[in-house]
């Protein structure tokens, strides 16, 4: 037993006397400082991996507004780059952005979705940190994986509405969210798509993550989608999701499926009139 002078007996038990109040005081001060530092450093505070702690940046709106306007006569060709299905391959994505930045004469870049594995905030943040290195405006589609957990809410905060469109010269680009399973089996917004794809003077380019011929699209939805696109002057469809590059004609429309970024390739699409030429670029 310690020196009895330092201890106090309470109800038959020995307890230590607080003989150095300065020590306790110093401890409280240190803890107060630590708590202050902790709470002032936001990046170290994680309430849940499923939270939606991300700034509303509306990156797609910002990217579309930065696409250089067409000045003077319409150019003969339009060039843009496409990559897709980043998931957790951040090193490959960074390498792709570096390579795309070296491409001359691109107007913008499109990512075909699935920028996360599980729709988690940190996954979105890591993607956004890398995409901001792009010298060209980068527009990001939502993929089926990006709907998991609270991914749709996080996507809307970070990028804006998953259904969007923009016009460049004679071309109208329509970004369509056709995820169903991960979105509580909700029907995609077909009426919006029908309204965005009028059979008019524009040459329409439809970009959606899941190809209409993928297994996840049931027959009814496939029929609705095909009916809308075939009547909407769509000359090119661009998709991701299948993790393997494919260029084909589906429903009478030139269709390109981008492979995933871990294949270490992206695609430069050259549009001239109603025709598209797709170049595979390895990096």
């Amino acid at each position, binding site marked *: *037993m*310690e020196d009895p002078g*330092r*201890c*106090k007996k*309470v*109800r038959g*038990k*020995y*307890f*230590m006397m607080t003989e*150095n109040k300065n*020590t*306790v005081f*110093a*401890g409280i001060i*240190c*803890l107060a*400082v*630590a*708590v202050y*530092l*902790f709470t002032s*450093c936001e*990046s*170290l*505070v*994680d*309430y*849940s*991996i*499923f*939270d*939606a*702690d*991300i700034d509303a940046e509306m990156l797609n709106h910002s990217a579309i507004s930065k696409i250089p306007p067409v000045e003077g006569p319409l150019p003969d060709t339009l060039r843009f780059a496409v990559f897709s299905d980043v998931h*957790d*391959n*951040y*090193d490959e*994505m*960074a390498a792709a952005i570096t390579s795309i930045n070296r491409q001359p004469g691109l107007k913008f870049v499109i990512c075909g979705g699935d920028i996360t*594995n*599980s*729709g*988690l905030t*940190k996954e979105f943040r*890591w993607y956004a940190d*890398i995409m901001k290195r792009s010298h060209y405006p980068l527009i990001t589609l939502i993929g089926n994986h990006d*709907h*998991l*957990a*609270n*991914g749709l*809410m996080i996507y809307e905060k970070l990028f804006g509405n998953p259904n969007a469109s923009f016009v460049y010269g004679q071309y109208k680009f329509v970004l369509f969210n056709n995820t169903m*399973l991960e979105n*509580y*089996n909700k029907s995609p917004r077909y009426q919006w798509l029908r309204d965005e794809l009028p059979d008019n003077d524009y040459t329409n380019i439809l970009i959606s993550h899941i190809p209409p011929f993928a*297994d*996840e699209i049931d027959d009814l939805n496939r029929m609705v989608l095909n009916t809308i696109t075939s009547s909407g002057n769509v000359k090119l469809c661009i998709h991701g999701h299948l993790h393997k590059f494919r260029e084909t004609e589906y429903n009478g429309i030139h269709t390109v499926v981008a492979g995933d970024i871990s294949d270490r390739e992206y695609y430069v699409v050259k549009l001239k009139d109603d025709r598209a030429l797709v170049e595979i670029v390895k990096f």
Partner: protein
Amino acid sequence: MIKTLLAISMGFMSVQEPAEPIKDPGNQEGKKVYLKAQYAGNAGLASIGFGSFFLNEKLMADISYGYLPGFANDVRVHTFSFKPAYNISEFTIKHFNISPYAGIAATWSAGHNIYLLAPDHYPRDYYYGNAFHFNPFVGLRSGIDLESRRLSRLSLYAELGTADYELLYAFRNREIKFREILNLCFGVMFHLNGDR
């Protein structure tokens, strides 16, 4: 930030004179069971739980419930945690009992679009559940004995942790820096007095 905290901890410890712990043989059993409350640490905005020490206080384990309310960042998440930990060492400086420890928390979360098994509308084996995760952590606990009838010791702790997928991504990607996968939490433990 982390360096600052470590510096504060080390500085605080270095000003104390080493001394033998005050032994109270009759009071050891009373420190085995504890209640705890924690801020952050992937267990909700705040969490509460209870646990116990085992194997001569070499191991401890607790279960806790945490809640992330909607006002914090727009989503509501319930988190249930089971946290076993190994007490790496234990020493006393003046009246402070210091113990570094390490462990892996198993967490089960419930909330929007979070599930243990994929819902029925998914094709079979399409997805694994996303509700269950492992969160490794290291911690430092500092306690002081109390002259209370109900509490034998009050401890404060800080833990540096990460999540399983973050650790995996950091190993796979040089783009993800180690500091980006860390999170820090604080908590308090109330060691209950045994009824003897």
